[in-house]
Structures are given as C-alpha cells and as structure tokens.
C-alpha cells in the first residue's frame, strides 16, 4: 500500500467521523415529522396548498416553543400523485429520516399505499383529506390499520351528506351523477346514490368519466341534460369540476350542480369563472365559522401566500396539529401517540369540532358551502349522526 493510499484512507475516515458526528446531534435538536403531498403533477395546486398550510402549522408550533422544548422539523416529499413514488417515500420516512409520525397531505392513491407500510412499521399517521376506506383498513387481512387516523371524511360520508342536503334542503327528487372513475369518484358517488335513494329520490343516470385525461364532458352532460334532473351531483377534482361546471352552462343546463370537496380550491373558482356562481359543495372547511382557530388560519394563510386557503390546506393543517397535539401529550413513543390519538375528545379543529375517532375515522359535521361572488360561503351544516358516524368496518 502506497503512502498516498494511506493518506486517502485517513482522510476518508476523518470525513466519515465528521459526518457521523453531525447526524445524531442534529437529530437530537429537532423532532422530525414526515409529510407527503402531490406538489407537482396533475394535483399540484392541492399539493402546494397542503404543503403551505402544514408549513404554516409548523411555524406556529415552533413559535410557541415547539413540542416538549424541541423544534419540529418537517420532512417534505413530493409523491406526484403516483403510487410507486409513495412506496419509496414511506420507506424513506421510516428508515432514512426516522420520523416520529407522518402527515398525509395527499390523495387516496398515494395515502393508501403509504398506510399499510407505516402500519407494519408501527408508525402513526394522520391523513388530511384522503377519502378511501382502505387508508384506515387493510382489505387483505381484514384488520384495521390502527396506527392510521383520518381528519377528512370517508367518501361515502361526504357523498351521503351531499344527498341529505339535496333531498332535505333543495327538495330535489330527480338526480343525475357524473363522477370520475377512480377511488374518490366511485366512493363519494356511491355514498350519494345510496343516501339519495334511501330518502326516496331517483338517480336518473350515472355517468363515469376517465381520470386522468378527460377534458370534454359535453357527451356526458348532453345525456344528463336529456333527463332534466333537479340536481347534478358531480364528483371530481378541481380541474374536472371546473370543466363540468363551465360546459354544463355552455350547453344551457339549468339544473343545480352539487359538488364535493374536490371543488374546494381557488383553482376551481379561477377556471370555472362566472359559471361557478351558485354551485354548492359538501366539504370539510367552513369559511364563515367564527371560531378564532378558523379566522386566524384564513387570515394568516392569506398573509403568507397571497391567496385564499382551501379545504385541502385546512384539512392538512388540522392533520398536522392533531398529530402534534398527541405527541405533546404522549411523547415520541408510537404506541403512546396512538393511544393519545384514540383518546381525542372534542378537539377544537380548524375543520370543525372533532368529537372522536372511530376506527381511525373522524366524527365531525360535514360543511355545505355555496359559491357567492367568487367565494365559498356557508350554506348549511350536516350533523345528522346517522350520516356522520362512520360505518363499522369488518
């Protein structure tokens, strides 16, 4: 072995020592919480909104002295709305970043991929707004993912709440459904159809469109127009929602359009423009809720990012705060965090008062909002326990 090689080895060893020293000391100073959202890709507006809101929450927690004297460090990943990215993210969070808990600011697709991996590793996660039942439930083993909690509504519950409002408040009897053909669209429109039929309404037609890719909804809407329904229930994300609303107006459709939380984005209002006026949605944020937690968030978000907050951001903010609250109470042991989450009672959340979690599912009222002068405003609140109590899974 030459002299050079010897020196190089010593140097390498030195470098390794320096790095190995930095690692643990930095980790002791902060408390790491993992976060993932579709920051780029087809759901980029929602992903950014979730990230912005959670970063705001982190700032607030850290400004208040952090958790048990430690500053919170948010480890952010972009899942690009792809399931294959989500697998890598879950493994990195567990093995590389060694986070204390995880917050999902993403859709059902990536979230239900991450959930079983975290469940297996015994790591708690609170999902902001993913709607699919399999986030909190393992369909293969037929057991609950009991480390996973959800702040958003199950698709079925939100759909049912929309149907409750359509039949009882709008007095609608004839409904048409146009829904995106994915987890989100299927579960939310199934919930709507079940409840509407139970209340005596008729579903004239159910049109499913392809996602991603569909931009021209005129063929579906032309068929729907034929039946002249009282209400058109539309399930989709903001881009599709905006196109549906615009194209319905172009085609001269007069039926009331009823949407869901996928509509709840400034992008929807921007793309749909004037056609958005009067559209009603079932969602997870009430802008006209006078509680300070709501009004402060709306004000601070606007000040920080220059545009209005939406449901996605608010739900993700809540998800982070619920997890932070549990860590504050229970420390960093995953079992203790899980227990603290299970014991949540009458939590004063940004997206409503959470009475409790049932098998990981949140129990709180569903918000009905209407677009007035280009803004979402309170229309009604659905708190019928028959609807908002999640069904027992088995």
């Amino acid at each position, binding site marked *: 072995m030459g002299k050079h090689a010897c020196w190089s080895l010593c140097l390498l060893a030195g470098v390794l020592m320096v790095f190995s020293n930095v690692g643990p000391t930095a980790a002791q100073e902060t408390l790491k919480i993992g976060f993932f959202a579709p920051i*780029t*890709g087809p759901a*980029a*507006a929602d992903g950014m909104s979730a990230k912005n809101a959670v970063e705001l929450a982190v700032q607030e927690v850290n400004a208040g002295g952090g958790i048990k004297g430690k500053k919170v460090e948010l480890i952010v990943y972009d899942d690009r709305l792809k399931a294959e990215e989500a697998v890598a993210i879950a493994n990195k969070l567990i093995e590389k970043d060694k986070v204390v808990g995880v917050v999902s600011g993403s859709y059902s697709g990536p979230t239900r991929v991450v959930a079983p991996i975290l469940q297996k590793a015994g790591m708690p996660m609170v999902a902001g707004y993913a709607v699919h039942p399999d986030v909190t439930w393992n369909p293969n083993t037929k057991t609950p993912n009991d480390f996973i909690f959800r702040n958003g509504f199950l698709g079925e519950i939100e759909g049912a709440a929309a149907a409750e409002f359509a039949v009882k408040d709008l007095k609608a009897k004839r409904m048409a459904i146009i829904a995106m*053909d994915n987890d989100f669209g299927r579960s939310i429109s199934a919930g709507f159809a079940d409840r509407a039929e139970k209340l005596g309404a008729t579903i004239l*037609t159910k*049109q*499913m*469109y*392809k996602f991603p*890719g*569909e*931009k*021209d909804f*005129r*063929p*579906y809407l*032309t*068929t729907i*127009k*034929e039946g002249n329904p009282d209400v058109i229930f539309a399930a989709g994300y903001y*881009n599709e929602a*905006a*196109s549906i609303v*615009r194209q319905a107006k*172009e*085609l*001269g459709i007069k039926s009331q359009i009823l949407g869901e939380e996928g509509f709840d984005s400034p*992008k929807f209002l*921007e*793309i749909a*423009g004037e056609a958005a006026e009067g559209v009603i949605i079932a969602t997870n944020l009430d802008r006209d809720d006078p509680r300070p937690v709501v009004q402060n968030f709306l004000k601070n978000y606007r000040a920080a990012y220059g545009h209005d907050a939406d449901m996605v951001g608010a739900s993700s903010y809540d998800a982070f705060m619920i997890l932070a609250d549990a860590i504050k109470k229970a420390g960093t042991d995953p079992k203790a965090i899980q227990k603290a989450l299970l014991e949540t009672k009458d939590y004063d959340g940004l997206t409503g008062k959470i009475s409790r979690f049932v098998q990981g599912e949140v129990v709180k009222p569903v918000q009905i909002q209407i677009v007035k002068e280009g803004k979402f405003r309170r229309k009604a609140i659905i708190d019928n326990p028959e609807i908002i109590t999640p069904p027992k899974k088995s």
Partner: protein
Amino acid sequence: MIWQQLANGIAVGSVYALISLGLTMVYGILRILHVAHAGIYTLGAYVGLVAFRLVDHFWLSLVAGMVGAAVAGYLVERLLYMPILHMPRIAPLIVSIGLFTAMEEAFRIAAGPHTLVYNAKVGLGELTIGGFRLTETQVLILLVTFLILLFLWLFLTRTKMGLAMRACALDTETASTFGVNVNAVIAVNFIIGSFMAGAAGVLIGVYDNQVWPTMGSIPAYKALAIVVLGGLGNIPGTVLASLIVGLAETFFIGVLSVPFPRDAIAFIAMILVLMFRPYGLLGKA
C-alpha cells in the same frame, strides 16, 4: 340530443384533424413519425395564451399561436431532422420522442405545473335551433377548421408549391429530377403542418379553457392512430378518420354510455379497419 352529440363529436373530430394533418403530411414526404408534433401543438397553445394575456384579443392570439407553432416546426425540421435524414428512420423517431419529452418538461419549468386558463371572449355567439345548440366555442372550432381545410385544399390543388408537395409525397426522388426543390417542399410541409397544430392548440385551450404542460401527451398517440386509420400520408383519409374517431368517442361515451376509456376508441377503430383495409380507410397499396 343526437344532434347535440353530433355537434360535440364533430367539434372534437375537427381538432383531431388539425393535429393529425401535419403528422400525415410529414410522414407522406419524409416517412418520419413526427411524435414531437404534439409538442408543437402544446407550444401553439402556450404562445396563444401568452399573446392573449399581452394583447387581450382572441383572434390575434390565435394567429400568434399558429405563427409560433409554424416557426417552431420549421426550426425542428431544419435543426433536428435535416441533419439525420440520411440515417435509418428509427433515428429521427428517437429524436422526436426525446424532443417531445423535453418540450413537456420545458413547458412545466417555464409556465409551472398548473393548469392555466384561456378565458377568451371569442365574440362569435352561439347558434341555437330548437333544442340543438352549437356553443360559441363549437362554432369557433368548426369555422376555423373549415377555413383552414379550405386553405389547405386550395394550396394543394391550385398552387405550384402544392403540386410539388403532392409530387414529393408520391415519389421524392423522381420529383427532384423534375426540378422540384425538395428541401423547400419539406420546409413548407412542416410550416403548414405546424401552423395547423398551433391552431388546434389554441382551439383546445379555449374549448377546455385550460392549457397545461402535458396537454399533448394524449394527442401524441391518438393522432398516430388516426393517421394510420386514414391511410398513412393520405390527407382526405386523415380528415375522415379524425371525424370518425371524434364521433365514435362521443357516441360511445355519451349515447351508448359504454364504460370505456375514450382514448382507446381510436385504437380499436384503427385495429378494426386495418384488419379489413391494411392501408387504412383511403390509403392505397
């Protein structure tokens, strides 16, 4: 309702025609599958949108989008395809796919991943006859497509350059021995094809009120299916195939309510036709 669906289908088919024509013209002369044509289409939409935001005038923005796409098409031909035309045709295909991917990423970096709105006042008004209604943007698409096809037909049949283009499509070498400037014909070919793709980009931008970086990814392969369906290199065949695909998609999903991804229909039509007519609808052996 059938009439309404007919209007929906023809509108979509018209845009397919505008995109596919450039592709079939390039194939007719160079035998290149010009996949990046869908990138030119997206570029047309973005250029149109930028112009619209600057001057707030729809028709000017349409012209800007068409001219922008034409310039880009010409540059692609001169700088990328020309130098490698002596290579096997797989080489330009690879270049084309690479360019298309790069263009999509460039749009994302330059304009952001978000959907941008193209909320233009066209000023045409809608057409209502009884229960049948041609929306304003459908009137726009039909009008613009008709004018462009008319221009293309006149150009191909009434001008010397058009004659030269048709001659090159039949046999480039023989055409050149008769004194046809093949390089000029290829350039004009790309310019006209891209011009139409740019128009399609702007029209779809307004029709959907959305412009986004990957808006070309579905047309990229659907246009290939349409071109094959019509008979590779065959211009009337491509127009016919575009309308058939547009109508078939609309009727399958709207009238028959077949739970079927619309983007598969072009391929199914292509396979069916190729089974009975291996050279496409109007193609010749």
